[in-house]
């Protein structure tokens, strides 16, 4: 029996406002609230609400015959809480049906998996904690920012206790292999890999509303027919979508919601089950190992990380950002930590891409900037201010390690003082018990002196009144 895993992704970055160099050091608020509000409110109305309600209706109709995976980034959740809080309730309803598996990912949709393993671990934990806090679910399957993956990421994930990761299954990465199997990572065979089926995903996300496509119009019947026609032993089809595909890229008028609603019915007819990734992994056995020495992703024609690290601007910005990672981790300032999270979103680097062929058009259509250069300039200005703030926390002359040990001493001091106090108390009680007059600790003497003083002055006051 064949299985389909649907993945829906929700992400929004905190877009930066126009930030000029003369704001550096003067203005510490970096975000374009108006644009962020406008974009997420519009998307919520066009896409998130209708899609979540469609999914709810599907679950009501088909019960546990329809399951899927959902991944929401921390920054998206924060924006939803800020601007469309009612969506959280809908998501909770989805979660309560038990037909949804929440996936783990980085908090800010960042590139930390490539840049800074420690930060990556922290971010993933922060994200999963937020999911737990909201939905009482602990994610077990990991999906990285834009499906970024390589053998090193596999090792990291394994060390963090994940049993499965979802990544890109584009043809020129897999070669002759099919994405429709379960694989295991070559670098650590205990990590299973689910690969997205690009062709079938894009039949919906890119071609569904294309009237010049020879398969137009696409119906759920036809689509499930295609999947049923895939060779019998290929058993898991992973269909990965950004949720705004439904209602935004493909407007409601295209009939996309009706198409989705009909999917479970035709899946049943063709004896295909709709499952969560964890269920799929339980059902299936990995057919082989997959070695990915260089990072891949689900973005751009090349399916590599050139969308974010392709030019000197992007590399410089990333390097500058992560150069303060350790410092930030030592800081305790909440706003600083928050900015640190928001500045890591991969979107900022995506806007700086200078690719100018087909991919470039996709880059610029998402970008709030008129050119990659102004995206870079604006980001670097913000980053310069951020770094100044990080440095203000602790003087730069001190090396990280030295600072770390100093901070450790400071933190330990509290514990030490507590302990010493305890000791003093026990000593004191002991002393009082053994001998009341002879052996009083000096502190106690001072205290009694001080407590006497006010009464003395009171007396004198009274005297003077007389």
């Amino acid at each position, binding site marked *: 029996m064949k299985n389909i895993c649907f993945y829906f992704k929700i992400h929004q970055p905190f877009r930066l406002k126009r930030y000029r160099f*003369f704001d550096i050091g003067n203005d510490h608020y970096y975000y374009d609230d108006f644009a962020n509000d406008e974009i997420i409110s519009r998307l919520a109305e066009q896409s998130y609400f209708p899609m979540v309600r469609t999914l709810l209706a599907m679950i009501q109709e088909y019960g546990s015959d329809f399951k899927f995976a959902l991944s929401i980034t921390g920054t998206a959740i924060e924006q939803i809480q800020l601007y469309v809080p009612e969506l959280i309730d809908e998501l909770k309803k989805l979660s309560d049906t038990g037909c949804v598996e929440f996936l783990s990912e980085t908090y800010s949709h960042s590139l930390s998996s490539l840049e800074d393993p420690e930060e990556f671990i922290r971010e993933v934990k922060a994200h999963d904690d937020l999911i737990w806090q909201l939905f009482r679910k602990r994610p077990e399957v990991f999906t990285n920012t834009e499906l970024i993956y390589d053998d090193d990421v596999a090792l990291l994930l394994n060390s963090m206790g994940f049993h499965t990761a979802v990544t890109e299954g584009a043809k020129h990465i897999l070669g002759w292999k099919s994405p429709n199997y379960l694989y295991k990572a070559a670098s650590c065979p205990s990590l299973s890999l689910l690969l997205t089926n690009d062709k079938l995903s894009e039949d919906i996300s890119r071609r569904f509303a294309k009237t010049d496509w020879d398969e137009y119009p696409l119906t759920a019947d036809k689509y499930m027919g295609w999947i049923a026609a895939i060779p019998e032993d290929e058993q898991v089809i992973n269909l990965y979508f950004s949720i705004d595909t439904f209602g935004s890229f493909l407007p409601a008028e295209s009939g996309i919601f009706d198409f989705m609603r009909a999917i479970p019915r035709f899946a049943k007819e063709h004896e295909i089950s709709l499952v969560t990734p964890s269920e799929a992994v339980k059902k299936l056995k990995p057919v082989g190992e997959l070695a990915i020495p260089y990072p891949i992703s689900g973005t751009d024609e090349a399916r590599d990380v050139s969308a974010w690290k392709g030019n000197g601007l992007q590399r410089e910005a990333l390097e500058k950002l992560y150069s303060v990672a350790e410092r930030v981790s030592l800081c305790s300032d909440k706003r600083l930590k928050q900015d640190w999270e928001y500045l890591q979103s991969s979107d900022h680097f995506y806007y700086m891409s200078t690719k100018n062929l087909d991919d470039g058009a996709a880059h610029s259509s998402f970008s709030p900037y008129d*050119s990659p250069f102004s995206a870079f300039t604006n980001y670097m200005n913000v980053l310069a201010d951020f770094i100044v703030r990080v440095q203000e926390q602790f003087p730069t002359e001190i090396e990280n390690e030295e600072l770390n040990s100093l901070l450790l001493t400071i933190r330990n001091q509290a514990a030490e003082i507590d302990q010493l106090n305890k000791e003093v108390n026990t000593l004191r009680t002991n002393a009082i018990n053994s001998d009341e007059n002879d052996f009083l600790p000096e502190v106690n003497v001072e205290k009694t002196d001080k407590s006497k003083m006010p009464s003395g002055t009171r007396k004198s006051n009274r005297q003077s009144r007389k």
Partner: protein
Amino acid sequence: MFGWEFPPHILGGLGTASYGLTKGMHANGDMDITFVIPRPWGDEERDFAQIIGACNTPVAWRDVSWDYVESRIGKFMSPQTYFNLRDHIYDDFNYMKLNDLGCIEFSGRYPDNILEEINNYSIVAGVIARTIDCDIIHSHDWLTYPAGIHAKNVTGKPLVIHVHATDFDRSRGNVNPTVFAIERDGMEHADHIITVSDLSRRTVIEKYGIDPSKVTTVHNAVIPLDEETLNLPRHDKKDKVVTFLGRITMQKGPEYFVEAAAKVLKKDRNIRFVMAGSGDMMEDMIRLAARRGIADRFHFTGFLKGKEVYEMLAASDVYIMPSVSEPFGISPLEAMEMGVPSIISRQSGCAEILNNVIKTDYWDIDAMADAIHAITNYPALYHQLRNDGIEEIKGITWEKAGKKVIDIYEKVIASRQ
């Protein structure tokens, strides 16, 4: 072709563009080009076009010998051409001030009696048009439109005019009515009009009321610089240098550069600003820089010529062109070729084709200052613009522009038949 300037003796961008285009058209092959200029100096490149000087073209018969002509103007053109031209004098111009060869004197510049010179140029064009057989007539800029119209009337061949600038660009709207009339007359008589950007195409259509179907944009290009220029020594200096290079006139928006400089200097004193060139606003700019208290960091070089321009570029870290209205603007292309990252105003024609530059509105001094700060402070941006800019310019060739012009010729000739 009728032109006014030709390298190496040029006063503005017109000469460079006419030269580049002619050379580019020649490179497409099967082209026989005669280029008329008011006054050649003898050191012009001649292997891709025959150059005729209006000041060497007789408009009245003089009985002179071969040897005499050879000794007088041999370095400008062959005596045979002189005699051919002399055979086609069409009227008696002896009432005019003529020299010993029966020719009218030309300054070849932009003198005060420019209107008279334009008229004389058109008289000479009549002789040349009768002498040289051609398929098409091409006039560069308003100074040569009357000559083009005259040649068209004489030969009956189609006229293409090339609008390198209009008076709206030069005057920020305060148009000189005489110049406007000459420009409009040329546009109306032309069979086709070539503009150097979509920006000036719109000006031609909207301000001169020309039928859009006969106006086509052919963007300018740039001539590859020689190795020696490209390898000019780059000074290793502590301070970054930001350069404005061009005429210091209203059209070029120099005051926005000074204001942006003042903004940058408030934050970062390690930058020097250079305003290279001369013009009627230079003194105002010196005063403005002093008033903003940045005179110690803001330098004026005066007019730069020839190689000095490239030496200045080689010593620069940023090139800036805040033009209020620029039909095209070749100089940023040259700066990019020299590997200098450029900031240009969106109101310049070259902004339509350039990608690896920073574009701002000319009035947005905040954006301009921010761009200057970013290029001088973020090395990655400098290198990105520099390296990709050099590559980009390699793809902008006069040969491609020339091909487009030839296509227009063919269309114009075909529509006549």
